[in-house]
């Protein structure tokens, strides 16, 4: 055991000379120890740095996918929160600002104050890699798209910059949250991309007509709906003959037959260009 101990301590370059210098074994050990003394710190540092860089990337990605992706999308494509897969982030012009924003939060976004500075740097670095993904090209003319938008009655359910009706989701900043591909798909197949927070419900009261509307609020005993005309309905569940959640349904019709070709490109360009209040 003492021999083993000596060999070990010598090998890692911290042991004192306890083996007799006259034995051949000791000479080999001595050479080995000197070599290790010279190289080990460098090797340790290099390995550590490599592991650290790899860890930052992996850790950043893991944290992003588990904590940020819910709002910003798995690949930063946006959703409830803005898309991050763009080379320039308005609120985070440099990496320091990005780390501060992630740590402090902004508006509805909670701050990730609990992250270690290394983790924070990892998330920020990963967010920057999202911006290096190839950029989406949007054909079409946004100006003409604005006309397609109003001619097809979109204002009847959506608000853009204060204009329109607030039945469906507000679109004032939709272009900063959704990709052009997503917007195109929503126009053609709205049931394929249902917005969160807009559950479509059918309520049949014991007396009076059935109501279909967006659920505004609900608890164990009551439910509040807003119908397509904007009227507000409040029911006690005990008064209802039936209450059905229209899973997978949406009041938004498909525009597959009405809007196509250049009109569709223009409309998508218009929506993709809606980036919120100036």
């Amino acid at each position, binding site marked *: 055991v003492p021999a083993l101990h000596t060999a070990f301590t010598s090998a890692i370059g911290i042991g004192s000379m306890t083996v007799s210098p006259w034995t051949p074994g000791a000479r080999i050990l001595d050479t080995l120890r000197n070599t290790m003394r010279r190289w080990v710190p460098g090797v340790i540092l290099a390995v550590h740095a490599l592991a650290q860089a790899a860890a930052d990337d992996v850790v950043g990605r893991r944290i992003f996918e588990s904590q940020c992706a819910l709002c910003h999308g798995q690949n930063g494509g946006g959703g409830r929160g803005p898309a991050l897969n763009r080379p320039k982030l308005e609120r985070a012009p440099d990496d320091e600002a990005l780390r501060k924003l992630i740590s402090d939060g902004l508006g509805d976004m909670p701050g990730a104050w609990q992250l270690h500075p290394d983790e924070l740097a990892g998330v920020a670095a990963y967010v920057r890699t999202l911006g290096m993904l190839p950029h989406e090209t949007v054909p079409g003319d946004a100006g003409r798209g604005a006309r397609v938008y109003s001619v097809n009655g979109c204002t009847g359910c959506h608000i853009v910059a204060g204009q329109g009706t*607030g039945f469906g989701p507000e679109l004032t900043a939709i272009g900063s949250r959704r990709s052009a591909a997503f917007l195109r798909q929503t126009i053609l197949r709205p049931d394929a991309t249902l917005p969160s927070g807009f559950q479509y419900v059918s309520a049949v009261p014991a007396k009076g007509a059935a109501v279909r509307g967006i659920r*505004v609020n609900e*608890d164990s005993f009551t439910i509040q709906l807003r119908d397509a005309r904007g*009227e*507000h309905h409040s029911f006690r569940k005990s008064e209802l003959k039936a209450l059905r959640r229209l899973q997978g349904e949406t009041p938004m019709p498909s525009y597959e037959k009405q809007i196509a070709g250049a009109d569709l490109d223009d409309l998508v360009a218009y929506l993709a260009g809606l980036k919120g209040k100036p």
Partner: protein
Amino acid sequence: MKWFALLLCLPAWGQVSFDRIVNASREPGNWLTYSGNYQGHRFSPLAQVTPSNVASLRVKWAYQMDSRAEVSPIVADGVMYVTGPNSAAALDVRTGRELWTWKRPIPKDYQNIGFGKVNRGPAILDDQIFVATLDCYLVALDTKSGIERWSSKVED
């Protein structure tokens, strides 16, 4: 009486026109201006609650505001609109459930002396709710969704 009042409201459901506000005293079930009507009565002619039955009133619902509440709510067509400092909410009068909320961040350098941060209430016209904020903005919100229609800086 309740049904009659409801019927009166139906033709103009969801739209609080100028005429309705001018004639607010014809709609005792609603509270369309800060003082209830243009005469500034701050008095409800509804006769259901009397000195003899007031003792038996029970809590029907409660709504927790984020901040101190010193608000004169607006009540129109089954919805109560309340405001706080840089915030507003629409409540279902039947259940007290939130229909929407709206918030505008209070600037970090905002200071007030003497009084707490409060808001004394909104105003309504057509399909818009008007809210004054502590940082001197007048904001118009959509009555149905609470989405901001416009805002304007009215004072420094």
